[in-house]
């Protein structure tokens, strides 16, 4: 049985071209970029080449790129690093109520440390109104952080508009663009952001690598101390193969994004329309237009997400739930709830995230299996209609 992998927002397989770019840096060019001898220098060259390539792709300067261990660390560095660096100036941070946990939980941590955080609620369509952000700015606001494209519902936030507001008030603006990098413009100049988070594992690159773009002149206090790598911004020996792989992955993702978006929008819309036609009592979560081309998120009333997920898995379809019930917490998704849905609706949500290997065959398979699964689970549910 062919596996239909529709969980590309969780992670993507490493592209063969990316793997090829990484392989020399495991056993052959294994040096520590901090060493002065030739093995060190050849590793250092790889890191600096990757830095240049990434900088060019997002229209930045090489020294505006900080390599870190992934999206989560990048978000942590942006938020905690800025908060600590600017705490004399102010103690207020603005974000939204649909952030990834790497931002959401970090903001909660900062609240415990005495900072004030305003979580601006999104509209029912899962998109924040920039005016609502403008309204809550105070003289103490030091940072605004808004996810570019949401990981659960794929809604795209008006980053350009928010950055104009931030600029006019001289407030730093950070965006987590991990989910966006494969499909949207991530040109830092166009977006007007001061800080941007990207990672490898969502764009067919390796896991365990990410960057924080930080505009020249942005003062950040490091969160990891040691050997002073990355100009002291991120100590720890550079993950050379992952850095080389990430640069390659980003290059491919940005080169292919427009064609890939067109292809996936069709498949995505077929999936949504098919589900709408075949399954009653559903709620489509998030705006259908201002949305990543690869994201489908639907709540099925009267059934719970994990049960659907595991039945789909048995049929060779990999999807994801908003409830994250099988992983670390039993809390229903804060993102689905932020759309004004009840806990019950949040518990019944299912995410399909399409990717480079998704074909019509995969969509047909979901449309064949999912209606049967939902029907059978509704039959045994005491709360289904």
């Amino acid at each position, binding site marked *: *049985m*062919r*596996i239909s*992998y529709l969980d590309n927002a969780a992670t993507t*397989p490493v592209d063969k071209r990316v793997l090829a770019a990484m392989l020399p840096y495991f056993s052959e060019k294994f040096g520590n970029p901090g060493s002065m001898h030739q093995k060190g220098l050849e590793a250092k060259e790889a890191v600096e080449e990757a830095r240049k390539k990434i900088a060019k792709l997002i229209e930045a300067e090489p020294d505006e790129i900080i390599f870190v261990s992934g999206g989560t660390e990048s978000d942590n560095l942006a938020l905690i690093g800025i908060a600590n660096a600017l705490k004399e100036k102010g103690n207020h941070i603005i974000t939204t109520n649909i952030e990834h946990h790497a931002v959401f939980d970090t903001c909660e941590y900062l609240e415990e440390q005495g900072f004030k955080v305003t979580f601006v609620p999104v509209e029912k369509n899962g998109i924040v109104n920039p005016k609502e952000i403008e309204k809550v700015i105070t003289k103490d606001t030091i940072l605004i952080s808004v996810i570019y494209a949401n990981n659960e519902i794929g809604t795209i936030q008006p980053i350009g508009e928010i950055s104009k507001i931030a600029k006019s008030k001289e407030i730093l603006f950070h965006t987590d663009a991990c989910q966006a990098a494969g499909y949207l413009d991530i040109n830092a100049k166009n977006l007007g952001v001061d800080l941007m988070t990207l990672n490898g594992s969502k764009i067919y690159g390796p896991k365990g690598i990410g960057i924080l773009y930080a505009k020249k002149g942005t003062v950040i206090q490091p969160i990891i101390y040691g050997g002073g790598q990355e100009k002291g911004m991120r100590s720890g020996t550079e993950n050379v193969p992952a850095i080389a792989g990430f640069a390659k992955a980003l290059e491919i993702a940005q080169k292919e994004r427009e064609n890939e978006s067109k292809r996936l929008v069709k498949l995505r819309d077929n999936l949504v329309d098919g589900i709408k036609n075949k399954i009653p009592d559903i709620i489509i979560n998030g705006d259908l237009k201002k949305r990543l081309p690869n994201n489908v998120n639907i709540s099925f009333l*009267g*059934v*719970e*997400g*994990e*049960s659907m997920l*595991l*039945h789909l898995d*048995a049929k*060779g379809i990999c999807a994801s739930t908003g*409830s994250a*019930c*099988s992983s*670390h*917490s*039993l809390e*229903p998704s804060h993102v689905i709830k932020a759309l004004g849905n*009840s*806990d*019950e609706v949040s*518990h019944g949500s299912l995410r399909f995230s399409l990717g480079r*290997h998704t074909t019509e065959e995969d969509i047909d398979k979901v449309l064949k299996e999912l209606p049967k699964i939902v029907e059978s689970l509704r*039959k*045994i*549910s*005491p*709360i*289904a209609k």
Partner: protein
Amino acid sequence: MKKSKQKWFYSEQVKEHFFNPKNIFRSKAEIAKFKADGVGMVGNPACGDMMKMWIKVDRKKGTIKECKYQTFGCASAIATTSVLSEMVKGMKLEDAFNITPKQIVEKLGGLPQVKYHCSVLGDRALREAINDYYRKTDQLEKIVTDSPIVDETLKITERDIENAVIEGAKTLEEVQQKTKVGVENKKVLPKVRELIKKFKEKHRIK
């Protein structure tokens, strides 16, 4: 992508009960035909789990003849109710009443720590069903419950009222049709009205 050997998150026992739940109701017709002696419901769709149990009792022997259920929830919630329905078949009511979550989890070959609460709901649903049987057969002295009692005359608990609301009763009259709360004991009615309002708000029922 090629598929290697199917991997599975839970134990083999959970797998069996999840994919082939035993003794489960799949239609309203089956429920009507069963003519249950006792019905119990616990959980809360807001928490992502809701279980309803129906039992048939052998009145002479004081044992459970059959145990049926419906579950809204994750795989471990479905497996928990399924394995419990098998465990209690033929069991004395008193023994069934005292089944612990630990016993259920052991039968399932263990559950991840975060999922233990599913089994805690299973044993509670069963106790509610047994209590319901005691209530219907005038054995009120046997009712033991962890939910605050609203109506002493019939031993109606706050949970009974919450369940009635979840099942669609919106007014005092409708809740009384389902539970008989305050039908004799009229002085509890203000409290019941208050609870109906509270549970409607809790479950966002208009």
